[in-house]
């Protein structure tokens, strides 16, 4: 379970966030400049909140009162940014094994290859990231992040760099994977179509979570113009009226 109750000021933006994920997928939606990516950086430990507390499965990652601030590399949070950030000087296998440094080489390769195969990228191991399509890059970035068996997954605009066909395919794949893994996942997106990925949607406006709930709950009582617009553009789930 990932819990964050934090306050931070980053440039002109003032964030006050109260959010928790328990084995579910939460979509953080919001207009540009609402603080979505900043929220991810605060959770990851790249930025430091001014006040509050972040905990993951009961372990405190950050606590302004006690001064606890676990470094990024020890937080066990997987992160896939919008551009996937594959290391361009390593091949796919080099990327996928990067996070498995403490293991011996044979075990690193075995585990990385298993994840690449699971995500349908098993035939790409010796390819350079520059030779991959957007969809392949995303699969490799996910395999690299998940090979470390993280406690939660943070995705920043996971489909923004893809063409419409790859976007539809990967959104469907990711929906299936997230259901299968039951890994707490926080997905930041401004695309209403990504609402189908999530168990719950948290709407962020000007640094604050202004409304959260299931797509259906938001549909019944949209709390702001942005939410109303989001709901209108979101796909109607199967079985709904």
């Amino acid at each position, binding site marked *: 379970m990932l819990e964050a109750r934090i306050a931070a000021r980053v440039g002109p933006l003032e964030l006050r966030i109260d959010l928790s994920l328990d084995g579910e997928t939460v979509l953080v939606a919001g207009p540009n400049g609402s603080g979505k990516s900043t929220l991810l*950086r605060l959770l*990851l430990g*790249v930025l430091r909140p001014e006040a509050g507390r972040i905990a993951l499965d009961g372990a405190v990652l950050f606590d302004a009162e006690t001064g606890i601030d676990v*470094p*990024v*590399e020890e*937080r066990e*949070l*997987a*992160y*896939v*940014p919008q*551009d996937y*950030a594959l*290391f*361009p*000087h390593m091949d796919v296998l080099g990327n996928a094994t*990067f*996070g498995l*440094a*403490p293991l011996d080489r044979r075990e690193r390769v075995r585990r990385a290859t298993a994840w690449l195969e699971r995500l349908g990228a098993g035939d790409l191991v010796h390819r350079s990231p520059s030779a991959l399509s957007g969809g392949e890059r995303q699969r490799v970035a996910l395999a*690299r*992040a998940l090979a*470390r068996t993280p406690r939660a997954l943070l995705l920043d605009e996971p489909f923004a760099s893809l063409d419409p066909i790859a976007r539809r395919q990967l959104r469907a794949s990711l929906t299936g994977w997230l259901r299968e893994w039951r890994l707490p996942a926080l997905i930041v997106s401004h695309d209403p179509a990504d609402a189908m990925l999530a168990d719950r949607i948290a709407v962020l406006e000007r640094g604050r979570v202004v409304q959260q709930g299931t797509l259906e709950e938001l549909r019944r009582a949209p709390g702001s113009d942005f939410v109303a617009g989001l709901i209108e553009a979101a796909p109607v789930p199967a079985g709904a009226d």
Partner: protein
Amino acid sequence: MRSGRPSAWGAAQLVASAALVAFLLLPVAALVLTLPWADFVGGLRHPLLIPALRLSLLTTGTSLALVVVLGSLLAWRVARHPGRASRWLEAITQLPAVIPPAVAGVGLLLAFGRRGLLGSWLAAHGIAIAFTTPAVVMAEAFVSAPFFVQAGIAAFRRVDENLLVVARTLGASPFRAFLRVGLPLAAPGLVAGAAMSWARSLGEFGATLLFAGNLTGRTQTLPLAVYTAMESDLRAAQALSLVMVAVAFALLFVLRRMAPGAALPGPGVRGA
């Protein structure tokens, strides 16, 4: 629209380019063309050559190693932590590039000479630097560091921050992220900076002469040997100069092979 007739603007570019290239090439051509082969071979046997060549390679190699190790860490710090302190650090490290070498020599003497700011304390503890081989290394490092640091800062700034953040989330400490991601991605820029820095220290003359002197085998580097030979034998000075040019080209060639993407001087630099 393009026409077949060259415009006055196009002609001006061609004339200016031809004039500047001729001016830059002529001294190098003169070095090669005006020296008969026998005189060149004779010059190679000049007693100053071997000690000066050996000293130049030793001191420039040492100063380059110092500049690369310290300069890489400083450049990383400046590039990854923007702010007022970094701007000051960057400005201070560029100072030696605008100080005339002779002034640098006087400054080094006043800082590290026997009566210098730090030198007097060192002398009291039995350490003398001025007019020794370490003084040559210091003079070379002083004048050449800005070239490497500036290239290093630019190269490290070009490394996408997301890659470093992802490396950290994959368990890499800040040092491992630097070593495995930052350093390899900045390598072409760092090699180019190292080449420029090394070329500058190989040609260093004024600061070395004032701070380290001109003692054969101890502080007489190749440029100082050329200067000394000039006083008695122009042909020998010319042969020594050609050796210097050959050493510089050989090193640039090796560096280009090491980092094919680096924007080093010489043919083959694309998009520079």
